[in-house]
């Protein structure tokens, strides 16, 4: 069905295009009217039962095991049918992907640490390799930001973007302190925000997420989050026992204002070497105070205006 809007006689191509757009939009609005407010039609997954920690699923990425084979990156692209990003050459070691984005949900970072760069006198060159991913923060700024409610915690306790609701406002993109979530913005894209779903579709069918399934060294582990955290603590202890005293857990516990991550890591170097923030900001903390400051200033200036206006009135009467 197409609505008969009077754009037939229009010769100016721009106005014609505008008319065609209006027609399209009106047609969509009429035909989809019952669907205009998605919650009435979309089945929203039940959020996790906060008391049942067994239900919360996460990733533990052990970078000391990563061999940089990129199986996870490829498996993720394939399973989630993500488009290619083009043939880029960054010159950054074996990493031509650069960063996670709307169309790359796993990204394998390669960092070459040359002998002369080490600071403790041990002259061994080494690689830092890490499979980066959405951290599925337990208190996720992107989820706090989302004004449409598109971003939710799903039944596995993971941060999930409902693609039928996102309207591409871009707030989550600036809210994420890890630079993970992105908006698909090329002309043939949908203009919505996208990121790792922690393979919610696979989890619903009882399968392991594609990246963890394909990882040949078990660098990516998947499971109930409390079990993962216990395993990670043990792993850190083992590594220290073997003399790798640089290894430490990143995101296993909360740091400052920022809650723990449900996809966390073992790292061997400064977080910035992996393009991770040292102490991610939790910008939604203290927003009430910031509101109050703004409102107070506005109210005070208006009140001064009101007082002075009142004076003019009285003055006018006297005079």
């Amino acid at each position, binding site marked *: 069905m197409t609505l008969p809007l009077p754009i037939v006689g229009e010769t100016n191509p721009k106005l014609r295009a505008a008319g065609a757009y209006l027609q399209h939009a009106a047609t969509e609005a009429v035909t989809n009217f019952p669907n205009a407010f998605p919650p009435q039609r979309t089945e929203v997954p039940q959020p996790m039962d906060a008391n049942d920690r067994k239900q919360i699923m996460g990733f533990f990425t052990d970078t000391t095991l990563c061999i940089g084979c990129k199986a996870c990156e490829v498996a993720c692209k394939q399973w989630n049918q993500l488009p290619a990003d083009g043939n880029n050459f960054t010159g950054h070691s074996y990493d031509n992907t650069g960063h996670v984005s709307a169309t790359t949900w796993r990204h394998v970072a390669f960092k070459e640490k040359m002998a002369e760069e080490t600071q403790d006198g041990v002259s061994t060159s080494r690689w830092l390799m890490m499979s980066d991913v959405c951290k599925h923060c337990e208190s996720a700024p992107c989820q706090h930001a989302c004004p449409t409610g598109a971003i939710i915690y799903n039944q596995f306790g993971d941060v999930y973007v409902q693609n039928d609701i996102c309207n591409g406002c871009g707030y989550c993109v600036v809210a994420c302190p890890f630079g993970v979530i992105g908006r698909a913005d090329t002309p043939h894209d949908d203009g919505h925000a996208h990121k790792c779903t922690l393979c919610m579709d696979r989890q619903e069918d009882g399968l392991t997420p594609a990246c963890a399934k394909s990882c040949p060294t078990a660098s990516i582990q998947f499971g109930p989050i409390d079990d993962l955290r216990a395993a990670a603590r043990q792993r850190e202890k083992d590594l220290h026992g073997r003399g790798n005293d640089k290894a430490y857990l990143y995101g296993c516990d909360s740091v400052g204002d920022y809650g723990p991550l449900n996809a966390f890591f073992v790292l061997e170097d400064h977080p910035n070497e992996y393009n991770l923030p040292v102490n991610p900001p939790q910008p939604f903390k203290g927003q009430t105070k910031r*509101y109050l400051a703004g409102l107070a200033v506005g109210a005070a200036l208006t009140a001064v205006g009101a007082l002075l206006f009142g004076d003019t*009135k009285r003055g006018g009467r006297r005079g």
Partner: protein
Amino acid sequence: MAEDRKDFQSDAPWASAMSHRPDPNRVGSLQMPAQKIVFDRPPAIPPNPAVSTAAIVPAKGNAKASDPDLPREKEPAYYDVPMLKKPLWKWEIATYFFLGGMSTGAHLLGRAAARFGDGGDVTKMAAYLSFLSILPGPPLLIHDLGDPKRFHHMLRVWKPSSPMNLGTWAIMAYSGAATSEVVRQYLNDREAHLKPRERNALNKLVNNGTLLLVQDAVGAPMALLVASYTGVLLSTTSNPLWSKNPWLGPLFTASAISSGAEGIMLLLDAKRKGSPADPASHRVLRTVDTLAHGVELACMAGFSTYAGEKAHTLHEGKMKGWHRASLAGIIGSEVAKYAPLPRMLKKPQRVLSNLLGLFGGFALRWSMVMGGIEAAKDPRTTRLVSDPAHTPSA
């Protein structure tokens, strides 16, 4: 074969050859029982304080991101790839921040004049100005979306913890008040053309005290909220320039009030042809404008102190000019306002002062919004935002 696979529909030449195979994307249709995820649970270990790194701390022997002794190239970094995504908000948002601010400022001052003063021309100009300047807001905001036809999804939830959601609801309520105000003003302006009976009806219905009370009870708080939420919106991001900065809300609110006052004064001058008279209410607006400019400068100072090095994109590079323009506009407007000029130049002087003030307000929003893009492009600045040394606690 291909026919009995209802879920496998494709015209591709290879499709018929594949149809006997199970479709790997549809596990449910294979009636595969959901697997229980088996995870070998390691023996529980009490966290060892000596080992467990409770906080995310740099490993031993590593320098802090901001170690001043470390040369720039030696700082820990990932090939200088920016850590954060750059904001997708562009000219639409900066323009809306300015226009919306001016609208709310004018509305607040106009209603204050009506309630506590004589109302008159100030209230009249404020009504038209606040309505006309909020009008482009929604189209600008919708145009900025990635999927504009879904703009109404903002209103499917009530989620005041998200400043954008709260702001959308506040704009809805505020534009209702601004519209009611402009309709009332318009009808009152046409009073002379009305028959006595209609005039009576007008005074009963439109200038109804209860109605006005409701309008102000909704309009004034919502105007304050629309003026201040924009700053809070920027501060609730991880962008280096904006993140957690407590001065942004007051800064934008003060700028909203000053832009509103300047807009009203310009309209008053446009209406009063050539008259050098400076009525009392005009003086009030001047005073409020000066006070608001003072608060703005104080907030700018606070902003720069809080942001520290993270605000360097305002002081160098593309946004340097706009940032200076905003300061020059604010200070220049005050200088022009109080410069002792001969009487016949009073009107051009007022107009110049107000235009400078408005320009300063616009440049302020522009440099803040666009400065965020510049900040997120700069790899070092994106690292600083998460560095404890550069993030004062809230």
